[in-house]
């Protein structure tokens, strides 16, 4: 299937790839965007960097969710559409713990904040890991040998079921939490300030990415994941418990979604039962942009999407503005799927991550 996805586009037109006009147009578009960014940087440097930092942080949060999509795709070649909703449940667990269990108020002291965050993180990660593994057990495993449309449909069905559970639990309104991460300034340079809450997001995302790469590349379990991704039957013949390996992958992806949910609620301070669907789509776009199946690509794609959103909404010189953000993000999804389906860094399954 991987080889099929790598087939050059438009071969059905003439039996050959389209002439080299397409990359040229792509290059021209990228150049235009760079010129536009350059002019904005020249005109309002402080705002440019402020917006860049917003985009980077938002992208890092998307990245954690995109990792879950890409990890599952890498091993099963299945888009787990319920992943965004598992992330939402992580956010809801966090909101419950922040407001009801620990009753945190605006900017609590470090001694009351961090133990609460760690406990919440553990609960959110464990809860979402179990939920994701359960989804796999119920909706995907029985369909392991069914046509590919079947697990795709059950994935969408699971997505709606989890959304409705979120709705029954928390109701239709946005669940709002007080801002608990410090907005204290780390540095302020020429009108650009960098605050602790943004750094905390990066301090969580980067180690998670490194840890994941280490897990997949260096551990015995990672080796089993790579083997199962490469050829499930051969892996089974070599004594690898394929089902257990897949369950493990879903556990890890779920835990990532839990961590992302926690980070999202702590940083953005609100979430709704359908947030997972929208943000899940954005994260999925990020994963496709970076090259689905590719761990580093997922984070890179997410950061790029975060930056595109922020630049579009935050820059003042001829930016299309927030009305166009969704159109731009999903146009990128279409363009990437049509012209470069392997993504920026190339599609990879965990064997080469």
């Amino acid at each position, binding site marked *: 299937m991987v080889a099929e996805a790598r087939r050059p586009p438009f071969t059905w037109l003439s039996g050959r790839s389209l002439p080299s006009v397409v990359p040229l147009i792509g290059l021209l578009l990228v150049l235009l965007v760079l010129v536009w960014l350059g002019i904005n940087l020249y005109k*309002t440097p402080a*705002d440019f960097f*402020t*917006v860049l930092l*917003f*985009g980077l942080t*938002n992208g890092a*949060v998307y990245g954690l969710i995109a990792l879950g999509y890409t990890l599952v795709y890498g091993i099963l070649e299945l888009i787990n559409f319920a992943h965004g909703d598992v992330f939402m449940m992580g956010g809801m667990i966090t909101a419950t713990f922040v407001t009801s269990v620990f009753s945190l108020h*605006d900017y609590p002291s470090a001694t009351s904040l961090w133990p609460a965050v760690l406990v919440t993180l553990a609960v959110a990660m464990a809860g979402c890991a179990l939920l994701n593994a*359960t989804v796999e*057990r*119920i909706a995907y495993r*029985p369909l392991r040998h069914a046509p590919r449309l079947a697990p795709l449909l059950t994935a969408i069905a699971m997505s*709606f*079921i989890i959304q*409705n*559970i979120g*709705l*029954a639990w928390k*109701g*239709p*309104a*946005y669940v*709002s939490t*007080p*801002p608990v991460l410090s*907005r204290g300034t780390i540095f302020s340079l020429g009108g650009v300030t960098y605050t602790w809450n943004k750094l905390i997001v990066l301090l969580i995302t980067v180690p998670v990415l490194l840890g994941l790469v280490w897990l997949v590349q260096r551990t015995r379990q990672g080796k089993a994941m790579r083997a199962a991704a490469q050829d499930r039957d051969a892996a089974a013949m070599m004594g690898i418990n394929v089902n257990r390996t897949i369950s493990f992958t879903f556990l890890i992806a779920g835990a990532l979604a839990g961590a992302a949910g926690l980070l*999202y609620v702590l940083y*953005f*301070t*609100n979430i*709704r039962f*359908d947030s997972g669907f*929208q*943000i899940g789509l954005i994260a999925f776009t990020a994963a496709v942009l970076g090259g689905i199946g590719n761990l580093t690509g997922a984070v890179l794609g997410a950061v790029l999407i975060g930056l595109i*959103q*922020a*630049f*579009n*909404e*935050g*820059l*003042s010189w001829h*930016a299309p*503005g*927030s*009305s166009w*953000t*969704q159109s731009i993000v999903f146009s990128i999804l279409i363009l990437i799927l049509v012209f470069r389906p392997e993504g920026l860094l190339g599609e990879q399954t965990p064997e080469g991550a």
Partner: protein
Amino acid sequence: MRKRLLIGVVAAVAGTLALVAGSYASGEKSARPSARGVLPAGSCAPVYYGPRYGQGRGGPKYIIASDLPMQGANRPQTTQMVAAIKYILAGRKFKAGKYTIGYQACDDSTAETGKWNSAKCTDNGRSYADDRSVIGVIGTFNSGCAKLIIPILNRAPGGAVGMVSPSNTGVGLTVSGLGANPGEPDIYYPTHKRNYIRVVTRDDIQGPAGALLAKSLKIKKVFILEDKEVYGHGVSTTFETAAKKLGLTVTGREAWDPKASSYEPLATRIKQAGANGVYLGGIICNNGTKLVKDLRSVLGTGVKIIGPDGWTPFSSLISGAGSAAQGMYVTVPGAPPESLKGAGAKFVKAFKKTQGGKSLASYVAYAAQSAVVLLDAIKRSNGSRSSVTAQLFKTNVKNGIVGSFKIDKNGDTNLAGITAYIIKGNDGKAIKAFYPTKKLTGR
């Protein structure tokens, strides 16, 4: 086999959970199966009528319905509005002249959106039109929803069904001109006969009142954000025109996306434009509290934030935006419940007791007034839909709950005051009433 059975059981449990959630989403939880109303139970609460409460005998001759969003951020307000309508109806012993009247509270929102939903509005409109026992409708709450229901009720079989809105401020529902879209309001009245009145004033008054408030707050440069809905777009336009007339500089106008994760980049753009005031033309349900939080975090407390009545109820604004809501200004058409005189003060005092002493949301008195206006029109009518509709346009209230007022041929009230509130502590405090001049409203 056992494994399959286990999977089946788990799947069944998940399915049941989904169904439970679905039924939560589909309507009021308090619906009693034994008291099903004539309107669809999916959207409407059972008939509220005397016999169940020890008054009257048999079923009511006519039904009045209210069409309000009962889910989402507006719920605290609309729940009080329904209670106010019930209070008025029970006070009149479920009668309007010689006719017995029952009441059904219908919901035009869905759990998925947490606010009014166009499909739900249209479905509700059809139900009211098709059910001949429905003699009049109180609603809608949102102008966008009114646009869908008015034309359906306008050509209802058996004559146009009259509507009384307690809170629609969208300009184009009743008049053309600034703040209305091309073709409005005629497109809503296919029979060329009007069937819609409202007891609050329009946004061509509210927008300019917001501009007067901005000027009084010494805002020189203002940035306008709108939510792209009918109401948000209209009120932003009338605000912008009046602000320019008052000499304020409009440094930009942008839309905010309700589904965005963050508005901090947008706030940076506002900061860059050098605005010392932001006008938020839209409704709180469109992720409004997150917007306020992000604006405050980037712009600080020095930049003043003003919103129209779409930012009510204050309780949702304060609980959702937390400390960021403090110091925000909100304009609301009409007088605050506490400042009502005469019949209004009497109503507020008595009704508050039924609500456990809780403070009343901005539109509660207007919902009660709407009920009074509709019941009086039914009383004066010959019992037909068109007669009730005709009587609505003859409304002339003296010392009513919201004061003395008349309804003109367009269906508008001549009460034109707009109250400005500031959010302080756990509620909004009324600070000043504004009466924009004709020069400012352009009418």
